[in-house]
């Protein structure tokens, strides 16, 4: 099936892009590969019936946050690769151990009989999306049941803006 093939393509692209991102010495190339990872994840979100999430993933992550990173690299003039910035291999060992632990947990859940996760399977998300639309299915609970959390997020963003302005201010006067 074409969607399966696309999903394999996006998953492989995200993994390869992530690997290339951590191995780049130039921060600008790392940003470009991270943007590629975000586009691949957006494709995966589309195929996983999360259309709204796929859109805001591109708009917010690839469009806003990564441009912020590029601005900072440009502002600090660190967009060159003239120093080796690897630490001791200890970090690689810990990262590899985390990888093995994750894959082991996943394999154990696949083949062993461990306790099932709580909740009723198969909620029928596709029918819900067809009924309410891609945005409505997220917006209804967001502005209904979880409106307090939404307002708290707005407050958090306000605090972040104030904190950023405070940190970026020059103490010249």
């Amino acid at each position, binding site marked *: 099936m074409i*969607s*399966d093939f696309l*999903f394999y393509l996006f*998953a492989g692209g995200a*993994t390869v892009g*992530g*690997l290339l991102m*951590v191995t*780049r010495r130039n*921060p600008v190339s*790392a940003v470009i590969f*991270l943007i590629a*990872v975000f586009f691949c*994840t957006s494709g*995966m979100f589309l195929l*996983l*019936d*999360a259309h*709204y*999430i796929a859109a*805001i*993933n591109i708009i*917010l992550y690839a469009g806003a*946050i990564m441009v*912020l*990173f590029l601005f*900072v690299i440009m*502002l*600090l003039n*660190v967009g060159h690769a003239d120093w080796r910035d*690897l*630490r001791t291999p200890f*970090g*690689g060992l*810990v*990262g*590899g151990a985390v*990888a093995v632990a*994750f894959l082991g947990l*996943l394999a154990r*859940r696949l083949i062993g*009989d*461990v306790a*099932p*996760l709580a*909740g009723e*399977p*198969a*909620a029928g*998300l596709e029918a819900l999306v067809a009924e309410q639309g891609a945005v409505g*299915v*997220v917006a209804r*609970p967001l502005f209904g049941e979880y409106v307090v959390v939404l307002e708290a997020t707005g407050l*958090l*963003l306000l605090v*972040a*803006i104030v904190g*950023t302005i405070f*940190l*970026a201010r020059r103490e010249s006067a």
Partner: protein
Amino acid sequence: MSPTLSALGTTDLLALLTSATLFSIGVMGVLLRRNAIIVFMCVELMLTAVNITLVTFSRVHGIEGQLLVFFVMAVAAAEAAVGLAIIIAIFRHYQVVDLDRFRALKW
């Protein structure tokens, strides 16, 4: 196989696998690199890996997973703004973005 995972298809399992791999790559980057900006980007990669897991399980457990992804993205935006401002402030002081040189708060 547990009921939740048997409700998921092959692509969902591949999504979980990709998510675990991306998270491990992010952990490795945070621990291995010394460039503060790249370490910060690895944190964003780990957040994205978690988002993939949340979206995958939201197919089985309902829309709340996607709502959580929304909030994760909002917090990531706030964190990126404040973190990059901190990096700029530190760069003004030390003229480098090398994490091993920032030892004022270390032992």
